């Protein structure tokens, strides 16, 4: 890291962060378990002599969280990090410097989110990037919308999983509002016990009854759920509401008003999440951030299932190459084995992009 990058790290340290030592060589499994097999193509994998897969760290958040769990550290606690990460990208070297911050265990999540975003903007400011454009989205707002629409839980999960994948989300909405086609969706719903019996026989016949995979109950339950889901059709007016929400793109300072207006127009209740988001925007203002260029987008998301709340990116001129990104990821520490859920929010900055476009 250059002297300049070190001074950026000092900004984070000054905001009450400790800096754990994070090795370059990391066990590969946690990354593949959390992000999925698709990540394998983008990371650099090797093995230790015992044949266990190791990789060059593709990012810092998972190692920092693993460090936090391994040291049984108390919360709340803030960590900062800086160093090279190794990951293939659409363009540019697969070896690039990042710094960032992880804020773990603060129960006032709104305060923590605001501090995190304020620290990001202060760091970018110190780096001389004063006019970055901040874009925010929120997974919990989208979840509240799906729940407010009264969608069956299975459909809520499906759509939430696609949050951040525009094309597939569109296809899912289209399917939700299209007429029923599949013959099984029209048939009579089988009795759960009979299905379990039928599936048990098939599992037994094929030697899978004790293989440790999906159980007969699990398969039968999903079969019934699937039939119910296939039958469910979204009223055209509700499909429009979903589409309108995903197209929302307003100045961040007007987001609260826009969301309340959206609730009024569509006649549905998104619960406390709207007030909470409006409050977050207020808190950002209180921290003296210039939000003139900042936007809120209803459809702005990431399709990783550990993100739970606010999501953000900061851009220079090129929206395809964010200077920084982050968000709230309350599910990650549980996925990594924490016995209780730990609220968490963080960001990382792509240092190699800071010099561009100024």
């Amino acid at each position, binding site marked *: 890291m250059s002297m300049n990058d070190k001074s950026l790290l000092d900004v984070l340290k000054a905001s009450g962060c400790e800096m754990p030592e994070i090795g370059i060589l990391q066990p590969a499994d946690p990354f*593949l*378990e959390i*992000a*999925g*097999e*698709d990540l*394998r*193509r983008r990371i650099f994998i090797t093995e230790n002599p015992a044949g266990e897969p190791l990789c060059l760290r593709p990012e810092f958040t998972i190692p920092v969280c693993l460090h936090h769990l391994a040291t049984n550290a108390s919360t709340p606690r803030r960590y900062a990090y800086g160093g090279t990460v190794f990951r293939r990208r659409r363009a540019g070297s697969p070896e690039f410097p990042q710094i960032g911050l992880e804020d773990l265990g603060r129960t006032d999540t709104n305060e923590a989110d605001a501090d995190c975003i304020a620290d990001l903007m202060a760091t970018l400011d110190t780096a001389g990037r004063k006019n970055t454009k901040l874009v925010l989205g929120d997974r919990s707002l989208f979840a509240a919308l799906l729940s407010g629409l009264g969608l069956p839980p*299975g459909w809520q*999960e*499906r759509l939430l*999983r*696609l949050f951040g*994948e525009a094309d*597939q989300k569109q296809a899912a909405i289209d399917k939700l509002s299209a007429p029923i086609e599949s013959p099984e969706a029209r048939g009579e719903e089988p009795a759960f016990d009979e*299905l379990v019996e*039928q*599936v048990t026989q*098939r*599992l037994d*016949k*094929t*030697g*899978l009854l004790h*293989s*440790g*995979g*999906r159980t*007969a109950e*699990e*398969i039968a339950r*999903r*079969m019934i759920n*699937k039939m119910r889901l296939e039958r469910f059709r979204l009223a055209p007016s509700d499909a429009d509401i979903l589409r309108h929400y995903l197209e929302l793109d307003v100045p961040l300072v007007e987001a609260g008003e826009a969301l309340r207006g959206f609730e009024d127009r569509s006649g549905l209740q998104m619960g406390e999440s709207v007030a909470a988001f409006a409050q977050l925007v207020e808190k950002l203002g209180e921290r003296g951030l210039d939000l003139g260029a900042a936007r809120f987008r209803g459809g702005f998301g990431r*399709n990783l*299932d550990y993100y739970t709340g606010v999501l953000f990116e900061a851009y220079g001129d090129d929206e395809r190459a964010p200077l920084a990104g982050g968000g709230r990821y309350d599910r990650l520490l549980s*996925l990594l084995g924490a016995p209780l859920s730990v609220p968490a929010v963080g960001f990382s900055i792509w240092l190699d992009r800071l010099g561009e476009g100024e």
Partner: protein
Amino acid sequence: MTVTLALPSKGRLKGQAIEVFEKAGFPVVTSDDSRTYHGQLGNCESVDIKFLSASEIARELAKGTVHLGVTGEDLVRENIADWSSKLALKAKLGFGGADVVVGVPDAWIDVTSMSDLNDVAAEFRSRHGRRLRVATKYWTLTQQHFAEHGVALYRIVESLGATEGAPASGAADLIVDITSTGSTLRANGLKILEEHGVILESQANLVESLTADRGAEDQAEIDRICSNFI
């Protein structure tokens, strides 16, 4: 210069490859010893034949050490990174047919499509404390196909043989494997997904290397041979 053609060195593939070349008007001439790994192509100026294993043929074509070869489309798409910049599939040869498919337990009555698999993969971890596992030797084809259908939450378990047995042994939950009739799959209690269950319909192809050194005369000879297969 000389043009080099690589043909499969073993079994039915070898016989069928020699047969299609003969039908196309190019008899394969080898010395009397049937164990030899060299030969010549008849009705050509100077075309040497090398007999190699089918997967070696794909690699040698990509490296440019042979000009033409007969190999499976699955081997090209699976093993050669950025294959279309190194190889050209010139003709399907009508033998060695097999599909690369997604096979799930027959008892999974709720799973008939990739989107079903996506739902199952998403809820699997919370029930079983691990990701859904796919046994395969086709890493690349599996990753591409699953990504195309938005399935991300699974793990690949490498399988170098008897892949169909992986679900019953508990090594994996489902498989991606090659099958010609589907009978081995059925015998192991597996079924092919009805929707998007076939990743690739593969067969033996005549493949041209785009990276091999060749002069204008060589290229003319290569083109002449290929044109007899189209």
